[in-house]
């Protein structure tokens, strides 16, 4: 092959290659065309091989011709590939439907009472309290006697007690309040004491819309030197403001009676739903009654071996379901215990 042969070969090949590129129907066909006209056995390779035999004068021209051939065919192939890819993309289906919703792994839920309980525990933990617990079946001492409620005391008839059939008659009962945990804490721990006691409590009632034989309370107990009723009221107010996440919440206290605290008070908070103007939640009073509170009766302290002249205490308690009912507008207590998944999954 001489220079002229080479130039003629490349000219012819270029026309043929360009026609083949244009004729390639898809990317796979184009791959074959490219291998043939630009690969190891292409005319460009043959010319390159032959160039060594050419005279020094002819070699540059031959090299230029090979370069021109490669770039022309390569460009044509590149353009064709782009066109084919775009066409293929245009004709492909719509991909997968991600709106089908995943593998449908269900989300679990904590019971609303647990959520409220944790929230309240965490508020008191923030105030420096520990969480205390006690048994749900109690003895007479812890549930009544140590709390200043001797047998035949009128306060016993305030509580419809469920007794269990163990030991002597009416000596063991399902606790009627979380207050026995106060006693157990003071029996087992030296003051100062700052605890909250959440837990289940019982009343001898049949489950219906407004009554339940079991429900949940939380009680707060602090015993320290120099604690006052102002400390009690201030702690309740701080707690209530966190609970309702509203620094404008006010607290109201009215004289009341509990055998184990003195002075005792009923505690209410200003209604966060109407700002105190009156609405359905607060029965148009502007106030929501939450529970009871008071200074720990000196006789209760003395009964567990704490000197009431050295130490003073305060306590307050409230119902967890009641707080949930207020916050979410739940109107029947049995909703908490039916365990309907529609309720459980709402929270």
């Amino acid at each position, binding site marked *: 092959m001489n220079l002229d042969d080479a130039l003629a070969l490349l000219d012819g090949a270029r026309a043929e290659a360009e026609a083949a590129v244009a004729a390639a129907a898809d990317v796979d066909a184009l791959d074959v065309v490219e291998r043939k006209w630009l690969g190891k056995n292409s005319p460009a390779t043959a010319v390159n091989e032959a160039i060594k035999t050419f005279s020094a004068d002819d070699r540059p021209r031959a090299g230029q011709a090979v370069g021109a051939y490669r770039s022309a065919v390569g460009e044509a192939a590149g353009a064709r590939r782009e066109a084919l890819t775009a066409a293929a993309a245009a004709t492909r289906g719509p991909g997968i439907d991600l709106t089908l919703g995943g593998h449908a792994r269900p989300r679990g839920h904590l019971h609303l009472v647990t959520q409220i309980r944790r929230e309240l525990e965490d508020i008191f933990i923030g105030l420096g309290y520990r969480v205390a617990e006690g048994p749900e079946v109690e003895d007479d001492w812890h549930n009544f006697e140590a709390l200043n409620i001797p047998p035949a005391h009128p306060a016993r008839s305030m509580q419809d007690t469920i007794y269990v059939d*163990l030991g002597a008659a009416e000596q063991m009962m399902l606790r009627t309040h979380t207050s026995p945990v106060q006693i157990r804490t003071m029996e087992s721990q030296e003051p100062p004491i700052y605890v909250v006691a959440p837990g289940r409590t019982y009343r001898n009632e049949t489950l219906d819309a407004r009554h339940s034989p079991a429900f949940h309370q939380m009680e707060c107990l602090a015993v320290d030197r120099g604690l006052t009723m102002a400390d009690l009221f201030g702690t309740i107010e701080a707690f209530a403001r966190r609970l309702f996440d509203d620094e404008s919440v006010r607290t109201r206290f009215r004289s009341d009676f509990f055998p184990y605290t003195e002075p005792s008070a009923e505690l209410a908070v200003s209604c966060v739903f109407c700002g105190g103007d009156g609405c359905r939640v607060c029965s148009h009073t502007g106030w929501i009654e939450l529970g009871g509170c008071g200074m720990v009766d000196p006789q209760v302290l003395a009964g567990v071996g704490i000197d009431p002249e050295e130490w003073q205490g305060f306590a307050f308690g409230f119902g967890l379901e009641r707080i949930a009912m207020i916050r979410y507008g739940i109107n029947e207590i049995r909703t908490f215990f039916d365990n309907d998944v529609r309720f459980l999954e709402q929270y």
Partner: protein
Amino acid sequence: MRAPLSWIRDFTPVDAPVDAIVHALNQLGLEVDAVEEPGREVLGVRVARILDVVAHPNADKLRLADVDFGGGQTRVVCGAPNIEPGMVVPFAPSGATLPGGFTLERRTIRGEVSDGMLCSAKELGLGDDHAGILALDPGAELGDDVRAVLGLDDVIFDLAITPNRPDAMCIVGVARELAAHFGLPLTVPEPEVDRDPAVTTAVPVAIEAPDRCPRYLAWTAEVAMGPAPAWMQQRLVKAGVRAISNVVDVTNYVLLEHNQPLHAFDLDRLAGPGIVVRLAADGERITTLDGVERPLDPSDLLICDGDRAPQALAGIMGGGDSEVDDATTRILLEAAYFERMGIARTSKRLKLRSESSARFERGIDPDGVARAAARAMELLAGVATARPSTATVDAYPRPAERARIRLRTSKVNGVLGTDLTDAEVIDALAPLGIDVQGSGEAIEAVAPTFRPDLEREIDLVEEVARRVGFDAIGRTVPKPEHQVGGLSHRQHDRRAVADALVGLGLAEAVAIPLIAPEAAARFSAVAPVQVANPLRAEESVLRPTLLTGLVAAAAHNAARGQSDVALFELGRIFRRPVVEGALPDEREAVAGVLAGMVRRAPIEPDRAVDAYDAVDAIDAVVRALGVADVRIESASAPGFDPGASAHVVVGGEVVGVVGALDPAALAAAGVAGPAVAFELDLDGLDAAPRVDRQFRVLSSYPPSTIDLAFVVDDSVHAAAVVRTLRAAAGDLLEDVRCFDEFRSSQLGPGRRSLAFALRFRAPDRTLTDADVADARTACIHAVEAAHGGALRG
């Protein structure tokens, strides 16, 4: 109690607005449940006389009453049983308005035209008495507005009195509190009794149980029975008490006014005549005024006549034999003080409560007995032309002593967080009838006998707080200095377990721990703790397992078309105590029930729940707690399918159960579909060793993996093979898991192939083929030796 403002004003000239009075009562602890102003809403209701009563032609329970309302006559339909000709009643003609804004119209009832209605006390807004039409004073002028006749232009405070305040259960007591609050005088006049020199009957009183009856006053009088005058009936009705007869009404009036229960016996029906106060004999019985014969106990106190025959259950209810009636001409008035606990015990045992017993058990004023008796005689003279005897027998051997209490101003301020002066403390207490002397650290307070709740310094601190008001106390927040807040390990664990199950997709349930015995027996083999006083059988034992509540919840949901559930509960379970007389063995457990289908469509196929879903939950709990070495060992358990259940074992102790629930037990509980469950004893898990959390350096060399399949008998558990492989594979083993279970006819019945993937890695080098080959050989030999498992080609 119901306290009409007009009655309160007999004793103190309170003229504050109603809201100010309500606010004061609430602050003082006499909680106002309701304020009634019946006169505001009762419009156009008139006095009428019933002329005739005839049967309703179309209704058995209704009658037709012809009434004369002064300005004319008309006919009304009435359903009350107590109407009769001659009775004077409140008549609401069409156009009249009753409480609640209800305006009457002429209407036809079962074919008979009714031109208005006759009213009960409740319909006029006077308490709850709805048993019959209110009988008015027969002397009332027909056509008059009942507001005037009944004194309805009044304000009635319905008060909830706490059990520590018996003194506030009467009008004088409420007046005393209001007088103190508003700085007004309290005037309780001494009763004036004109004893008739011609009436000298003195009845001897023998108190055989002086501890139970510290005071007994007996006073006779000659009386003329009849109705009480309108003004007295009005007050009783407004206070929620029915008028009966002048004598009985006076005893009720004094009870309401002075908190002293009184009883009037017909003197001529008392043998002797005499009074013996004694304890009941074993087997003795008494028929009380309500007509019920009651068996007595030797701890019950009786008021007996001279023949020792029971005439009253002391302090609780009179007997029928000596009740006053129209024929009575002479009465014996009893005014006594009975010991509190004794009354409370008898009242509770007989389930018999009365206005009297409620007061005696809270504690009345022992020193007020004579004054109350005199007040009754004063009233009886006016309303029953009574002629009181010159002789009053007052057995009061040991007069009550007033409590003397030392009070420190520093203590008041120390408890309340206030800055009150001596004078402010004394001024707070004196208007309550407390005599106060001294100052500073040595105030001496003498409590009145009508305040049994005042015995100690703290009781007076509370009085000061009530008087100055809680608004006078500041707000401070104490900060514990000896500890930081936080949860215990156990409390953290509990949250971790619940969170793990929530992460697995389970919803937390909370069930009532009181269940039916048969439900307990379905899922537990232990005898449950019984409730001694259950209201119904469905709530008569304490749950020995959480499964009952979860299965019941599944049934509740299935009945509402929600049969696919995944629920767990974390709570207490109860077993009988190990030691007699101890509290029950109360443990904390976590359990779950999954029922119905696991819905994954359309991405994966839906499938029924299976026991492995429950095993996943066990795994989630165990990993949340980091418990080391938990084993699942095939075993049967109550309520579980014996072919698909297992124990969860930690350190040789069974701490739980897992598997498919027995279809029969499910059906009995109302669950149709398949359901699986688990239950774990958290107390047991809590004691188990935890995995070592010491950090191990992560190797940067590549792992080497081999798969081994063994043919083993069905009796060989996959977990046992895994343990064997772990032990045999050496230190280089990083992980092993079973990835295939396979049966075929070639393997033969009772045999299966289990395939395991083992991953090896060295901390310091790339493993050689020889390393892995050695381990592989060791594993094959170990499985063969331990389980007879042959390597499958």
